[in-house]
């Protein structure tokens, strides 16, 4: 039987062997060097080969016929060549010379409601490939934009798991309204409120953490009015468009990514130990004229204090472990393309008990019914679980840096937690978990009416369900004698939009190309919330909450809604392929404003000139591309709370015993109306020059802009005689002016490749008017940043500190006239600095040699100030706060020249009634240069993978925040602390108050494709 089988095989296969054909050749680069590892395939088949070390390839067997040969190599343009193979022929096609893919200018970029060719774009748009954000272990993709685009300042959130970053596009043009750019994911302006839970626990929520970075195909950052104008009322602070992946390859492509890493803090707080604390405390006591042993904080006896030496920082900090896995499949076949992904990550931070876990799934599917009609569906589902710990002012590491003294024990002699400040007790007796479910979905229909006209309709829906469950054991609330508290804050968001766009494109003749679109859009958003509290001794996290329970204590519910209705249009015209003009217009109506000012109108106009297309440039061969751009437009901001324009009331329901007064309901006004409240508007002028040199080996862009914002929305603190503490009005005016420069150079393009990306941006910011109000009318929360005319948004408004009087050791300040005084009085505050950096940018060098690649990203920020707000307690009046070792440099006896004044327990010694003595002693240079990321990777060649299951395999190791050069004496110069509201977020980046430092990570990445 076996012999018969072999005979049959020989009979059938022999002809094939004897008449086998082949195609051979060599793949070269432009310099004539062979390209090893290039792939050459026959289009529409799986037949192909990989070039050897000299660039040679041979495809065999090949049946006779006509083929399209496709040669590909990373970093080079794909080349196709038609070949005909005759029976019995061994076809040698000779050299296939690939040119480098430096021609970025024919790349398509996503713009609002459409795409444009890069060369015809007249706005200022930074495009970032999705791969850039995928290997960085960040809480959300926007943190990975740091250093990637000129004029985009990213301040990564703190080391807390899941923390949010602050992104500023071209400075800050808002005061009380949200100053973040608008985030649009696959066409839907997503909900991006970071204050759903305020700053509870010393952390704001991160509305962008739901998105799996592996799903991102590209990110386009729209910066000027020509590009953001199409988003009208919401474009003033820039727009960030996120496009997720879709199927592209005819061949099924499966990708698996795994990242595993460790996290530690970039800096570790150094606090006094017990002996040091007691020594300094006693010194302060005696300095104040007391005798005998000092009365210690918490009424602790000296004997107990001496026997205790708790290192609370050690108790708060551990080693974070990160896991991240993502599996995706994509394919584009005749009428159908799809991309599906499932991912899971579990990132614990260096704070003990703190982690962020996310599981997400996505499916993007396009189906082409016929040549004219296409449907698309995107759907994404995410479950994110944030295991919370208190931080900053709320406790945890913040307590370890402040009121958790080394003389306080964790446990008493009976082994019970002590009732003094005890972050270990608080952490262990509190179970705090925020669980978020979010789904983002879209459907689209594209219909081609004729060659010039098509219509696209899309509908998107976002659903968010957030549960914040906090259980506090009864031992944490001894004053209440309660068995414990179980709190649940629930939030549900429904956010949908739909739009219809009619697009027109026509090439009239060689000289005239016109295009345009008209669209209509409606967006509706609602947020429901509910707060429940139960008095009980066990965690209730896994139970449904029921108001019927006997343990039910109280509950609050609410709902808010807003909507936008918009019409918009864009017109493009290209003359002779070198003169480009574009106009956009948007009219927005919104429920955010009253009938008096409900509609806003936002036009923009821009022109571009492709200078290198001119005949007179033909002799400048070095200059391969040069485009000049000018734009002007008006954009707006409406990111304010709802219904602030009208008077509203609340009434209680007496059924709730907590409400009302004397068992009777109450009705009361909740808002001071302002029916003329209107859109904040920014008038932006932009001039840019885009260039390519040496066949685009060097490509760059230089831009100047001036953005003048008027009718700036401010939530003003008004005299209390108004009956309210604050109200909204359009008051301020702000100037932002700056230059941006970015350049990409391909320094080496041979076997050893070296690419450099560099960007730098300067922004000048100035508040030019705040009406008749004072500097204190809007404040950056508790951060002592104020609005000062002639100074930037986020000006440090502080009493000036001169030094220590060597005679008596007391601090000396300056009064408002510059005279020395020993009385600290906030009436003497002046503008002494600002938190905005002057220059920010990034430098990325990428090296590639054979299978190895090395990427080094350096981020830098120069200028601006850090206000180390907690220093005033860690290095000021001796209180119930622990102190930092720098305090050893203090005045001790007459004649001492010391950095810090005499130790005292009495605030009067420092000329104040409070230990919260804000002065510019705590103001530091915020400049820093940071080795943001180093990654070393090895990509297995196809030849190495032959015979294996995989078509691509890459392994890499990376580290983030490895080195920082700074003069800031505190923990970490990159600071985005917890904020109280949008005004605080706009004005107080760079203020630290017990803020956990950033994390340093070490990671291993694995990427497999098959």
């Amino acid at each position, binding site marked *: 039987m076996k012999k018969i089988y072999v005979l049959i095989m020989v009979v059938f296969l022999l002809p094939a062997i004897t008449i086998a054909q082949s195609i051979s050749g060599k793949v070269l680069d432009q310099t004539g060097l062979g390209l090893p590892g290039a792939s050459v395939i026959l289009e529409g088949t799986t037949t192909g080969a990989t070039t050897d070390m000299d660039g040679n390839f041979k495809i065999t067997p090949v049946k006779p016929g006509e083929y399209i040969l496709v040669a590909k190599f990373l970093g080079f343009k794909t080349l196709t060549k038609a070949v005909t193979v005759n029976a019995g022929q061994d076809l040698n096609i000779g050299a296939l010379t690939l040119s480098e893919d430096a021609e970025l200018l024919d790349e398509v970029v996503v713009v609002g409601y459409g795409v444009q060719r890069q060369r015809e774009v007249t706005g200022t748009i930074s495009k970032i490939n999705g791969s850039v954000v995928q290997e960085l272990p960040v809480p959300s993709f926007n943190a990975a934009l740091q250093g990637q685009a000129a004029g985009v300042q990213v301040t990564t959130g703190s080391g807390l798991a899941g923390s949010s970053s602050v992104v500023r596009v071209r400075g800050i043009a808002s005061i009380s309204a949200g100053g973040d750019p608008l985030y649009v994911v696959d066409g839907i302006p997503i909900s991006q409120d970071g204050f759903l839970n305020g700053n509870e626990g010393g952390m704001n929520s991160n509305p962008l953490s739901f998105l799996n970075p592996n799903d991102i195909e590209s990110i386009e950052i729209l910066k000027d009015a020509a590009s953001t104008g199409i988003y009208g009322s919401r474009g003033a602070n820039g727009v960030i468009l996120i496009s997720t992946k879709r199927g592209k390859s005819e061949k099924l492509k499966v990708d698996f990514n795994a990242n595993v890493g460790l996290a530690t803090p970039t800096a570790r707080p150094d606090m006094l130990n017990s002996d040091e604390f007691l020594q300094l405390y006693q010194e302060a006591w005696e300095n104040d004229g007391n005798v005998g042993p000092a009365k210690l904080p918490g009424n602790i006896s000296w004997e107990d204090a001496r026997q205790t030496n708790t290192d609370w920082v050690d108790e708060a900090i551990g080693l974070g472990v990160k896991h991240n896995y993502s599996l995706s499949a994509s394919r584009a076949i005749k009428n159908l393309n799809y991309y599906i992904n499932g991912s899971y990550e579990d990132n614990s931070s260096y704070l003990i008990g703190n982690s962020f876990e996310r599981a997400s799934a996505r499916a993007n599917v396009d189906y082409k019914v016929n040549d004219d009609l296409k449907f698309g569906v995107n759907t994404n589902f995410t479950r994110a679980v944030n295991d919370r710990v208190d931080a900053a002012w709320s406790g945890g590491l913040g307590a370890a840096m402040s009121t958790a003294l080394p003389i306080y024990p964790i446990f008493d002699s009976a082994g019970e937690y002590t009732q003094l400040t005890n972050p270990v007790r608080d952490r262990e007796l509190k179970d705090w978990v925020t669980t978020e479910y979010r789904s983002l979905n879209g459907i689209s229909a594209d219909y081609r009416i004729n060659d010039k006209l098509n219509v696209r309709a899309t509908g998107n829906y976002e659903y968010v369900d957030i549960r914040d469950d906090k259980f506090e054991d009864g031992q944490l609330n001894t004053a209440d004698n309660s068995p414990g508290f179980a709190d649940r804050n629930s939030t549900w968001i429904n956010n949908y939009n739909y739009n219809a766009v009619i697009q027109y494109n026509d090439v009239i003749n060689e000289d005239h190309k016109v295009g345009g679109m008209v669209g209509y859009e409606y967006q509706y958003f609602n947020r429901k919330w509910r707060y429940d509290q139960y008095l009980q001794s066990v965690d209730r996290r896994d139970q449904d909450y029921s108001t019927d329970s006997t343990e039910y204590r109280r509950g609050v519910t609410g709902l808010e809604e807003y909507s936008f209705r918009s019409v918009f249009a864009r017109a493009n015209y290209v003359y002779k392929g070198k003169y480009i003009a574009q106009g956009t217009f948007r009219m927005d109506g919104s429920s955010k404003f009253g009938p008096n000012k409900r509609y806003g109108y936002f036009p923009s106009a821009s022109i571009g000139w492709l200078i290198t297309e001119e005949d007179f440039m033909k002799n400048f061969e070095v200059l391969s591309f040069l485009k000049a751009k000018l734009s002007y437009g008006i954009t707006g901001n409406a990111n304010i709370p709802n219904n602030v324009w009208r008077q509203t*009331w609340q009434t209680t329901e007496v059924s709730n015993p907590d409400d009302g007064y004397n068992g009777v309901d109450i009705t009361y006004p909740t808002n001071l109306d302002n029916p003329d409240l209107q859109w904040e508007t920014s008038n932006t002028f932009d001039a840019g020059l885009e260039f390519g040199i040496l066949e685009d080996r060097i490509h760059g862009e230089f831009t100047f802009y001036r953005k003048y914002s008027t009718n700036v929305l401010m939530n003003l603190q008004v005299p209390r005689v108004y009956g309210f503490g604050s109200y909204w009005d359009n008051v301020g005016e702000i100037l932002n002016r700056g230059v941006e420069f970015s350049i990409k150079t391909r320094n080496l393009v041979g076997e050893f490749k070296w690419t450099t990306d560099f960007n730098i941006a300067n922004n000048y910011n100035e508040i030019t008017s705040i009406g008749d109000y004072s500097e204190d009318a809007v404040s950056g929360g508790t951060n002592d940043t104020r609005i000062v005319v002639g100074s930037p948004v986020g000006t440090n408004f502080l009493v000036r500190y001169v030094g220590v009087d060597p005679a008596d050791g007391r601090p000396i300040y300056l009064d408002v006239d510059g005279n020395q005084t020993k009385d600290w009085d906030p009436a003497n505050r002046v503008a002494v600095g600002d938190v905005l950096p002057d220059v920010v940018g990034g430098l990325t060098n990428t090296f590639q040699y054979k299978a190895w690649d090395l990427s080094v990203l350096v981020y830098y920020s120069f200028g601006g100030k850090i206000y180390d707000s907690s220093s005033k307690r860690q290095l000021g009046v001796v209180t119930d706060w622990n102190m930092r070792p720098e305090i050893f440099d203090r005045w001790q006896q007459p004649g001492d020249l010391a950095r810090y004044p005499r130790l005292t327990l009495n605030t009067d010694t420092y000329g104040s009634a409070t230990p919260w003595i804000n002065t510019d002693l705590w103001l530091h240079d915020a400049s820093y240069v940071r080795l943001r990321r180093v990654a070393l990777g090895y990509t297995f060649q196809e030849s190495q993978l032959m015979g294996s299951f995989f078509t691509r395999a890459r392994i890499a190791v990376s580290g983030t925040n490895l080195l920082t050069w700074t003069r800031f004496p505190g923990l970490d110069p990159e600071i985005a602390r917890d904020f109280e509201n949008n005004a605080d977020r706009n004005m107080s980046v760079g203020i630290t108050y017990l803020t956990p430092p950033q994390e340093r990570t070490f990671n291993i990445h694995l990427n497999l494709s098959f």
Partner: protein
Amino acid sequence: MKKKFLIYIALVVSFSFSCEKLEFEPKSDLLTEEAIQTEDDLLLVLNSCYDVMANTINGRSQYYAELLSDNLARPFNNEDFIEVYNHNMLFFNGSIGSFYGEFYITIFRINSLLANYDQVDGVTDATITKLENEGKFLRALCHYEVTRLFAQPYGYTTDNSHDGIALVTELVREPLPRSSVQESYDQVITDLTDIEDQLPDVNDGGVYATKWAAKALLARIYFGMGRYQDAIDKCDEIINSGKFTLDPSVNRYTSTVSPEAIFYIESTNGNNRSGGFRDQFSSNSDNPQLTISLDAYNIYNDTLDARGNWFVPVALGETNQQIKINKFDADFFQIPYLSLTEVLLTRAEAMIELQGDVNTIVSDMNQIIERAFGTGNRVVGTGFSYDALLDRVRLERRKEFIGEGDRIFQLKRYGAIEKELGIEVRDNPWDCNGMILQFPISEKSEVFELNPTGGC
């Protein structure tokens, strides 16, 4: 096909357009036309005035005043409190800023009611009278509290032309200047005298304004101004009404309403308005913010004095000494703002100042003394001199109202009205800058000067 598709698109768009809204009624809030439709709605707004006013005299007004005095030790660690205690308050004191704001929220709501009640159809005259009378009572109470805490006292200048407070008698949207203290008192007294006999005799116990509450408040005001006969007259009316009897217990801060409460803040287990009062003082706490000064504790050195049981001394004489007070320890309690005890002691002292009827003075004082020491113990007699009676009535007054914020105003009266020399509070003169609270920075404007700082 193409036509059909376009028609579908057009239909969807037009249908959607018709459903779209650009205005939403707030779901968590009401619009004015929804909230204020009927006479009952107006009464709910009036109740909200009581509600917010209750957040000022539910202990806050009492212990801020007490912090200025010599009755308390330095607060445990609350810096806002310590600033007040140190007589050097800054305009950033958040606790005081929000406390100050509550008075003007109350006043705004009252003025808003008085300005707009006629826009509601069918409001009866009885309701209008109620709104006007109780509104004026609350407005007077708020203006008075702000005046006595944020301005130097009556008598600080001979004509009382020194800075008082912003008087708000109508709706405003612009900063107001400070009236003089004379004008401030005039406004308060006008509001009260307008309505003292118009208010009802009984109004849900003493939770809402009655004629007796207005008269008791007037008695307190007149007494502070040195208008002793006017104070006596008001006290007479209250005492002679027979509406109130002395609480048999020395502690009026219990869950049941004291029979001597003329006006009080209502508190329940669920709607506990006394929590702040309790939490600051609670003797059950290891480290209550507010404890009693040794100077004050030492005046209760008579073992017969039942009020001596209010104190829980810890580590007396040591560096970690604490003298806690258990007067406000109940889980929840009613907060008497005006009481018969005050009326009796006010009448007695005012009569002593005017050298009036000794029998009445002795009778009034002994009611208080015997309650504390027991029948017949430590009583005063008609043979006592006016000076001796004055010393004793002042001592009993300080003892009775410890923790209640009365002491500082008496000290100021001794200095400003009685012109007694050497009146000091913890070594600071009664009239130094820090002896009054500072306004929040929000008040500062071209027309409104904050209080001067330093000098204490």
